[in-house]
């Protein structure tokens, strides 16, 4: 974490689609609330084949320790050797834990209520190892790597987080009946770590049954830990259950760095530039970042304003059934911050 003269410097990667416009709104809210954070903006051009942009971004994050980012598009027209930039960022910085907290919001209409699930997803290996080859023409192998070290590490993270947050149960999601060695190893590591946390209940569930349970009785889940791909599926299912991609923030933690973004990592190309995107997820992600920087008062102030707009004022964007524009929602949030009597700049 970089603090100089009381001000923090954070790397900002606008990304593609709705990233740039929503991050501009975040900066506006920060400026208005006099948050002592300066953003170092690094652009990544997803259309280029070279790695220079990504290397700059990674260096900047190493320098500042913390980043806020939009999703970088992965263009299929580029050759397969050009890997997903988002993935490269996560693995280069060893951001091994992806954390997502899915909570039902009272102001949002959904089929299921009272959902409160924390999802901890292994973020660097598994199916996302990007190790593929074409053995002979028309036959492709993709390697899924599971290691003891990373499985222990993520299990440890999950149980520690559960304990810190006063949660009672951790469920490991896997497919060890089919992938006996790979997911078997993951499950074994979770069991080992669980034995060191007797105050927390540990159980496991097969991934296909998990998705079935999530759409019928999501209230049964507390904390869930899983390898990379299942994490992708489960986190998107949960985000959908509480109201969609515009609402849930996500965080990627490593030993030395932390990167904050929306939980479901969508580019939102089709709604970019139309002032209709939901700013909630990225604003809440920026609050998670402020907590990480120990600027808790600012974090709480902005978060409360966002949730008040969502649940009391009920000013909603189209994705959750409302008619508000992005700008209207942001301005409502800023008005609420101002009304609480804290120091603010001009509108």
């Amino acid at each position: 974490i970089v603090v100089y003269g009381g001000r923090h410097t954070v790397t900002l990667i606008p990304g593609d689609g709705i990233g740039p416009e929503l991050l501009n709104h975040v900066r506006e809210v920060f400026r208005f609330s006099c948050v002592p954070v300066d953003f170092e903006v690094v652009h990544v051009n997803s259309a280029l084949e070279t790695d220079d942009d990504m290397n700059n971004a990674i260096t900047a994050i190493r320098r500042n320790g913390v980043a806020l980012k939009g999703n970088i598009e992965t263009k299929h027209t580029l050759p397969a050797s050009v890997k997903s930039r988002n993935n490269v960022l996560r693995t280069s910085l060893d951001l091994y834990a992806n954390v997502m907290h899915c909570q039902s919001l009272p102001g949002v209409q959904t089929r299921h209520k009272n959902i409160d699930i924390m999802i901890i997803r292994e973020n660097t290996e598994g199916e996302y190892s990007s190790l593929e080859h074409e053995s002979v023409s028309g036959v492709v192998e993709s390697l899924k790597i599971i290691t003891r070290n990373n499985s222990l590490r993520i299990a440890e993270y999950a149980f520690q987080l559960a304990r810190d947050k006063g949660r009672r149960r951790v469920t490991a999601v896997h497919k060890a009946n089919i992938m006996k060695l790979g997911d078997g190893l993951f499950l074994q590591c979770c069991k080992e770590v669980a034995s060191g946390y007797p105050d927390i209940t540990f159980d496991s569930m097969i991934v296909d049954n998990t998705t079935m349970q999530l759409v019928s009785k999501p209230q049964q889940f507390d904390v869930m830990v899983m390898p990379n791909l299942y994490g992708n599926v489960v986190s998107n299912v949960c985000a959908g259950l509480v109201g969609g991609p515009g609402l849930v923030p996500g965080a990627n933690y490593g030993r030395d760095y932390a990167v904050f973004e929306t939980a479901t990592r969508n580019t939102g190309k089709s709604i970019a530039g139309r002032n209709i995107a939901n700013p909630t997820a990225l604003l809440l992600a920026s609050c998670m970042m402020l907590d990480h920087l120990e600027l808790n008062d600012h974090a709480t102030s902005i978060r409360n304003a966002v949730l008040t707009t969502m649940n009391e004022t009920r000013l909603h964007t189209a994705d959750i059934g409302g008619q508000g524009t992005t700008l209207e929602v942001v301005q409502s949030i800023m008005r609420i911050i101002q009304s609480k009597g804290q120091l603010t700049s001009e509108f």
Partner: protein
Amino acid sequence: MFSLVAVNHLAVKHCEQIFGIMAGSAWRSMLTQVVGGTVRRCTLNSVHLSKGMQTVTLIPGDGIGPEISSAVVKIFQAANAPVSWEERNVTAIKGPGGRWMIPPDAKESMDRSKIGLKGPLKTPIAAGHPSMNLLLRKTFDLYANVRPCISIEGYKTPYTDVDLVTIRENTEGEYSGIEHQIVDGVVQSIKLITENASRRIAEYAFEYARNNQRSSVTAVHKANIMRMSDGLFLRKCREVAESYKDIKFTEMYLDTVCLNMVQDPTQFDVLVMPNLYGDILSDLCAGLIGGLGVTPSGNIGANGVAIFESVHGTAPDIAGLDLANPTALLLSGVMMLRHMGLHDHAHKIQKACFDTIREKKVLTKDLGGNSKCSEFTADICRRVQDLD
């Protein structure tokens, strides 16, 4: 009235004379066009006799398998479905050379009848042989797993108006079973994607869409992360889509599908995908309509064999107590009838089943009632006969 066989033969001869012998699906499409809407479409290689009975291999299975199978047999009889059942057992036996295989009489029956209906099979633990489902899949090269998920009116779930079909590649992908420990603490699982299997499943998906009047096919993938493997799968889907311009083709990331599916499942029609995604998504969709107790499933093989099955477990705790719910197996039987071209019988039985569930008078415990399996079955039989 001409028997359908005679009509088929005439049409075939007509085609052959004019166009010469054409390959595969082009010929089949031509066949249905020439003879028009009166012909019941023949899916893959199933030629049937309209007047006579068609043989189906019945595998009751374990646990509640036998009782739900006999429930289905009763209902089919009440509906006068022209099906004659050949019951067979499927337990693994060791063949010559030490390889595990299914009993030869079961294989022979299935090869002859080409159609099977199967109840749940026990998963052996430490029995020394692979699961029976895996053996069946390998024996008949069951490459496509098809699960239509339709909301059951009268069985309330938080989701209504679900009407989609998941088509899952069932032979390769993440379930190739190739795993090894490279060094202590590092395990590598291999996901295999081949051009042939991808093309085959894509062709099946589009053929299914066309034969069942579905308007779009969506390929589900993660080609942003698995560039080469899912990229190959996607490319094959795109190529096959070119030959089916009447069907709309879209692509969607797996996570986006999950995200959208739980918010609005009505936007999906036919979904085609590799093995693991298919496993997860098909169960997710089953959850939307009420779970595995009410979801039908079919497996299509390479040489014309099709096995329809219920995908729930054997429920040993209620086996033999007349408490089981035969809906999943029954709806799989309905899927089977449609595959055989017996649409009227399929419609009758499905309607009777849905009406019974909607009336809520004789529901089994898992559906929220406390009636017996035999009472539930009798109610459906009665309705089926009344519909005649």
